[in-house]
């Protein structure tokens, strides 16, 4: 069968188009994998209430993403939520008395973990645990507190 | 049997059925080297099936077919493909590949089976097209050709590998007198000029008679008569006479099986 130039060019273009589409999809739609190629170390933290924190949620310090949550589970021994997170290995000087809170990005956005630096001279490393944690703010509790305050203060 | 015998193809006691229908039974036939042999018969006797049996596209239930002294049932796939390259076949409607132009259609076997350079292929293809008188149509597409022209291109294609045997499946069907004359002339000329053997399957008694050296009349799954065209014309058998002279009624009945005429008519009337 004769191979006309236009058929060859057409097929080439088609394949190129398809491959760039595939490339676009794998890079632009996914987010979490940015850290899989990078060296990370794993850290544990316990929270009383994780709110709507999900795995692959970012871990940020001063607003900059330095890691992500890998798993969220219930710890039957401590009867609270156990969150495993990985931090990019290049950030290896985070004091081990740092504070981990569950924050909300924007007003109704998804939740993430924010780290506040402590003052300790020893740093977090693979297997460490973050002891100072702040649970997610649950709206009902907040309203409850507000009402109690309003009730007791506004006589 | 030696390979240079005068019988190129021998069919012995062939039995072939499709499902419950028996198509051939005790069929015996020889095709002599260098001759044009015609296979004739009423419609539906399975002439095309016979061609397929010869090229082993179909396998008979019983009996043997010898080509050049070799029983084709014993051939391996490889050998079978080699054998098929010795055949050139002209199909009823040409069977040109519709997405290739005339040149490429004729070149097709060369491109598939040989490693000839483009220059050589061009040479061979144009020569064959010239032999059938269509060298000027090399760039046309099959859809643009008339029936007669398509058939001539198919003939060029059938010849392009210089086969030993040329098979024509109903080559005269649906052609105007001029085209028919052309094909008839080509069949005879090719056979004699190239020293090949030809098999023509047809039911066109008049045309075939002008061209064939030997004819077989196949009816009811057997050979009803054989001989030169003149011998057949003067044969005594009823079957042969009906076919050769085109008589409307005879062993092949005019009326298809039907219930009694009077009963059918009157029965309906009285309802």
């Amino acid at each position, binding site marked *: 069968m004769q*191979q006309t130039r236009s058929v060859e060019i*057409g097929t080439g273009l088609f394949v190129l188009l398809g491959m760039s589409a595939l490339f676009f999809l794998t890079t632009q739609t996914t987010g979490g994998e940015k850290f899989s190629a990078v060296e990370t170390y794993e850290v544990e933290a316990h929270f009383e209430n994780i709110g709507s924190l999900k795995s692959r949620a970012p871990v940020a310090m001063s607003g900059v993403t330095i890691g992500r949550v890998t798993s969220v589970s219930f710890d039957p021994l401590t009867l609270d939520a156990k969150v495993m997170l990985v931090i990019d290995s290049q950030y290896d000087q985070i004091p081990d008395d740092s504070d981990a809170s569950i924050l909300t990005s924007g007003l109704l956005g998804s939740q993430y973990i924010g780290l506040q630096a402590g003052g300790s001279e020893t740093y977090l490393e693979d297997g460490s645990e973050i002891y100072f944690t702040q649970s997610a703010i649950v709206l009902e509790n907040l309203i409850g507190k507000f009402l109690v305050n309003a009730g007791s203060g506004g006589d | 049997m030696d390979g240079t015998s005068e019988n190129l193809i021998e069919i012995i006691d062939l039995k072939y059925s499709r499902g419950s229908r028996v198509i051939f039974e005790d069929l015996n036939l020889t095709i002599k080297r260098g001759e044009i042999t015609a296979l004739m018969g009423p419609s539906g006797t399975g002439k095309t099936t016979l061609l397929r049996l010869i090229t082993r596209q179909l396998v008979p239930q019983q009996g043997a077919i010898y080509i050049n002294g070799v029983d084709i049932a014993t051939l391996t796939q490889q050998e079978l493909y080699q054998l098929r390259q010795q055949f050139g076949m002209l199909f009823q409607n040409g069977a040109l590949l519709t997405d290739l132009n005339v040149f490429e259609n004729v070149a097709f076997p060369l491109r598939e089976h040989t490693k000839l350079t483009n220059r050589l292929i061009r040479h061979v293809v144009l020569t064959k097209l010239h032999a059938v008188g269509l060298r000027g149509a090399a760039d046309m597409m099959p859809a643009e050709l008339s029936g007669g022209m398509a058939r001539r291109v198919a003939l060029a294609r059938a010849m392009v590998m210089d086969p030993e045997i040329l098979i024509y499946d109903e080559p005269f069907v649906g052609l105007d007198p001029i085209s028919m004359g052309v094909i008839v002339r080509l069949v005879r000329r090719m056979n004699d000029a190239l020293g090949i053997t030809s098999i023509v399957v047809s039911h066109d008694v008049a045309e075939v008679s002008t061209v064939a050296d030997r004819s077989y009349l196949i009816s009811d799954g057997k050979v009803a008569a054989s001989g030169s065209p003149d011998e057949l014309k003067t044969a005594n058998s009823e079957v042969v006479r009906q076919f050769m002279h085109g008589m409307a009624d005879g062993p092949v009945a005019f009326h298809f099986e039907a219930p009694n005429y009077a009963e059918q008519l009157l029965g309906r009337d009285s309802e």
Partner: protein
Amino acid sequence: MRALIRDTYDTVHEFVRTFGAFQLFFLRLLRHSPRIVMRRPGLVVTQIYNSGALSLVIIMVCGFFVGGVLGLQGYSNLARFNAEDSVGAVVALALLKELGPVITALLFAGRAGTALSSEIGLMKATDQLSAMEMMAVNPVRRILVPRFLGGVVAMPFLVAIFTCIGLFGAHIVSVDLLGVDVGAFWQQMQASVDINDVREGVIKSFVFGVVVSLLAVWEGYNAIPTAEGVGRATTRTVVISAIAVLILDFMITAVML
């Protein structure tokens, strides 16, 4: 009653037999594929063009509108929960995992699948396949394998293009027309989608490509060589492809979840 049982048995028997023949046909195509790719790649390239490049128009147009309607629907339904920002994520997940592969497969069956069936069926009806056999060319290798491979290669690319254009369409609708924040659109998407979702889509597109191409080639090759027969084969290609794709989609999704 006996007749009913007999008929059911015959139908099941016939179905199983056809299915078995179908599998053997598939293996036959696979067996010839490597040599065709190595010795006659030009044939495959032409078929990739026929099945892929020529399907681009329908794929891109439909992709755009599917993405657009997903953007619309996504926005209006998410707005009930004040979660319009997530429309990017919702559309991306729907397209990548389900709608991309499935709708592309159905469109492919309709456009490229029918073209294949009718082409091959017509070749059968006009004795071209027989002629090839007579010329000692194996029509399975020369005609069927390249068309099958062309479809298999073209499908995943078509799915990727469909999905991309779909995202683009959703973007235009939700960001440009409905006012969703462009940053949130992509952020939410990237936070919710991961490489496994893309992988699921790719696997599906590959499987669907194989199934639809195989069905198209099979139906054409086994068509009854009359005008009616070819028409019927073409219809069967679309119908059986649609059913097969949807059933397989369910099975693959269940396995991968």
